[in-house]
């Protein structure tokens, strides 16, 4: 990535980051579409021998041998038996039966997490700079589990099984599959074992936002990552024949449009199909679009494919307009023809012009890369949202990180659009998704791990969460691009990751496997379900009162039952990982009808690893007309602030 290190404060605070030799002991396993080992981001210059604990391997297959690995890319395996059992033998003329990445996604995520420094990186000159992963000295192990036909759970489980054997320290998984209960979800099951072995599992939250309750990867032993923007944009203006201009974004590079205005047409008026406005394949009438710029509505098919459809029909360019589903979120694409994406409001204004002017004309002005865009970050519209549909008492997502227009390494086997007709080849590509935010957190978790080798996955996640920020520098709340309004913990969890602060959080909320077993007891899991999840017999103590509210999670999700008790109590335990000190608490509630009290309100830590418990009582006075409400709880010693988001709902 060429911007996120600076955006996250990593470059200014190099001296505070863990020593390179410590970071190089950490291995990040990435379950994805494989790896393009020739990427300069896997240059191993300056790295010492692979960690002695490493047991992984580089597997041989189509166009891939063990010599493709080095001291940076220390492991590469592929898992296709489940895929082939379901869909038949892999067609090796179409995809590599090896760890080689034919797609680009896996190379992008792995280089985001731990790519080496590469100077003069860009995509067609866009987003220029020195590209690097978050943990530049960490090692990468690629586990290919996703194929043209999808990612199958039998393969995912096999890869996680092997990654645990191999001794990875962090697992990065930018994939998901609906919302199965934890004991049926292979990712959750595999992550439980990984967690027990001290491996932090970071997963993407999903791209089903802004719909509420749209999150994947909800198990509390997983770190669930949503997406926000950077302070970078790629403006490409729409200039209409009536003199009005509208902002858009694009990564197009190629032949320019003529300097004169070009005839402009709405795709819905250039098609006999009822969905012609979407520029689906084969729906545009060439005689109507030839030589014109076409306005297509976003949705259903891939954005870049719409451009390809316009190009194939003889169109000169494309304006891609968001609909209500995407609002004002602008995602830039490396289109095959001159094209730009505009928000819903601009799209509607442009359509008004198109429908009112008998001879509409337009041109697109490409402005390159702009940095310093404010406000940033804003929560991406596509980022999946809470509340947690499986366990409302656990707030998800946990955190957000950059996931919009991220530049990182790419496969040499496919063009930047991923379309088969795209014959361009690039070393770096710019793409968006919670797939992109997840490996940011994986890499940052590796940095925290390197600085604190003895910390558990829960302690590392706690450090990342309790130091995250939820407001801009001047104090205004982070915004949600889907609404233009302040975002909530259902959108950003604990907030936006702040890695330098996470290296020294002061206190952490720690958790061990036993705590999660108590949690599933509180969920009333059967012995058989617990055994499936935890691989051992664990009997919930019938004399013990288990509560979901007692899981030592770094955030609070309070569920009041309508018409029942209006008092909910949560307990937590803080572990001192800093110097001795006295922490005082403050708790705020947006909703005046919800009172929050903390007992005790002060915690004195006299030594490292000392643990102190506290209880929070949430009291709803009167019936709330609001269905969701939010708050914040902070412990501070004047040097550290250990913050937790609070989400309150009435069921």
């Amino acid at each position, binding site marked *: 990535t060429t911007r996120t290190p600076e955006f996250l404060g990593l470059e200014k605070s190099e001296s505070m980051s863990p020593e390179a030799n410590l970071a190089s002991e950490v291995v990040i396993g990435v379950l994805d579409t494989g790896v393009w080992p020739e990427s300069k981001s896997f240059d191993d210059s300056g790295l010492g021998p692979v960690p002695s604990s490493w047991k992984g391997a580089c597997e041989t297959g189509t166009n891939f041998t063990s010599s493709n690995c080095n001291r940076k890319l220390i492991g590469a395996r592929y898992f296709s038996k489940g895929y082939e059992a379901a869909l038949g033998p892999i067609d090796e003329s179409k995809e590599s039966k090896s760890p080689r990445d034919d797609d680009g996604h896996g190379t992008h995520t792995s280089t985001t997490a731990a790519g080496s420094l590469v100077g003069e990186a860009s995509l067609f000159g866009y987003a220029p700079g020195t590209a690097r992963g978050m943990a530049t000295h960490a090692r990468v192990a690629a586990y290919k589990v996703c194929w043209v036909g999808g*990612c199958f*759970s039998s393969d995912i*489980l096999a890869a996680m099984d092997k990654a645990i054997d191999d001794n990875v320290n962090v697992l990065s998984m930018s*994939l998901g*599959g609906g919302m199965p209960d934890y004991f049926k979800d292979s990712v959750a099951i*595999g992550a439980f074992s990984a967690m027990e072995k001290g491996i932090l599992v970071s997963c993407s939250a999903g791209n089903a936002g802004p719909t509420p309750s749209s999150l994947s990867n909800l198990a509390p032993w997983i770190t669930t990552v949503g997406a926000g923007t950077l302070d970078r944009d790629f403006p490409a203006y729409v200039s209409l024949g009536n003199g009005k201009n509208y902002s858009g974004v694009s990564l197009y590079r190629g032949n320019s449009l003529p300097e004169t205005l070009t005839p402009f047409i709405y795709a819905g008026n250039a098609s006999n199909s009822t969905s012609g406005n979407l520029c689906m394949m084969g729906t545009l009438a060439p005689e109507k679009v030839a030589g014109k710029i076409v306005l297509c509505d976003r949705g259903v098919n891939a954005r870049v494919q719409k451009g390809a459809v316009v190009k194939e029909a003889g169109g000169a360019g494309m304006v891609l307009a968001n609909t209500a589903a995407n609002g004002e979120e602008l995602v830039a694409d490396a289109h095959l023809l001159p094209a730009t994406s505009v928000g819903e409001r601009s799209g509607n204004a442009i359509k008004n012009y198109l429908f009112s002017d008998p001879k509409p004309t337009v041109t697109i002005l490409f402005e390159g890369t702009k940095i310093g865009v404010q406000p940033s970050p804003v929560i991406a519209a596509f980022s999946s949202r809470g509340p947690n549909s499986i366990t409302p008492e656990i707030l998800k997502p946990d955190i957000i990180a950059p996931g919009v227009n991220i530049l990182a390494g790419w496969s040499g086997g496919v063009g930047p659009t991923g379309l088969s007709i795209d014959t361009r080849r690039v070393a770096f590509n710019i793409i968006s998704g919670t797939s992109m935010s997840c490996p940011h957190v994986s890499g940052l978790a590796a940095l925290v791990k390197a600085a604190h080798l003895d910390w558990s996955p829960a302690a590392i996640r706690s450090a990342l969460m309790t130091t995250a920020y939820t407001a801009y520098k001047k104090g205004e709340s982070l915004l949600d691009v889907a609404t233009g309004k302040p975002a909530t913990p259902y959108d950003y969890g604990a907030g936006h990751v702040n890695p330098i602060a996470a290296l020294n959080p002061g206190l952490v909320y720690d958790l061990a496997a036993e705590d999660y077993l108590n949690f599933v007891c509180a969920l009333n899991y059967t012995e058989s379900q617990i055994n*499936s999840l935890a691989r051992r017999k664990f009997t919930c103590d019938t004399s013990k009162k288990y509560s979901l509210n007692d899981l030592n999670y770094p955030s609070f999700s309070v569920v009041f039952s309508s018409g029942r008790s209006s008092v909910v109590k949560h307990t937590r335990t803080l572990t001192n990982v800093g110097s001795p000190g006295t922490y005082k608490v403050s708790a705020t509630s947006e909703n005046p009808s919800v009172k929050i009290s903390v007992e005790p309100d002060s915690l004195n830590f006299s030594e490292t690893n000392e643990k102190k418990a506290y209880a929070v009582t949430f009291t709803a006075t009167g019936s709330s007309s609001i269905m969701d409400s939010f708050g914040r709880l902070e412990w501070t010693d004047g040097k550290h602030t250990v913050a937790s988001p609070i989400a309150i709902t009435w069921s």
Partner: protein
Amino acid sequence: DAHQRSTYIVHMAKSEMPASFEHHSHWYDSSLKSVSDTAEMIYTYDNVIHGFSTRLTAEEALLLGSQPGILSVLPELTYELH
């Protein structure tokens, strides 16, 4: 189609493995063979679960689920990149 096979993840209760088996993989194999002569294991898992994946008909899956030592027989899920 009753003969249509799908992939299942079979979770075994390792603590219930009969003493007659020297290795858990033999027990997995025996359990599978008790419901299907032709089904083969796709993977056996050691760390993430105690169990294996295989292709079964719906009837075989149901039958396997009722065998001793079987915790669950779960249909495979497909995941997608985000």
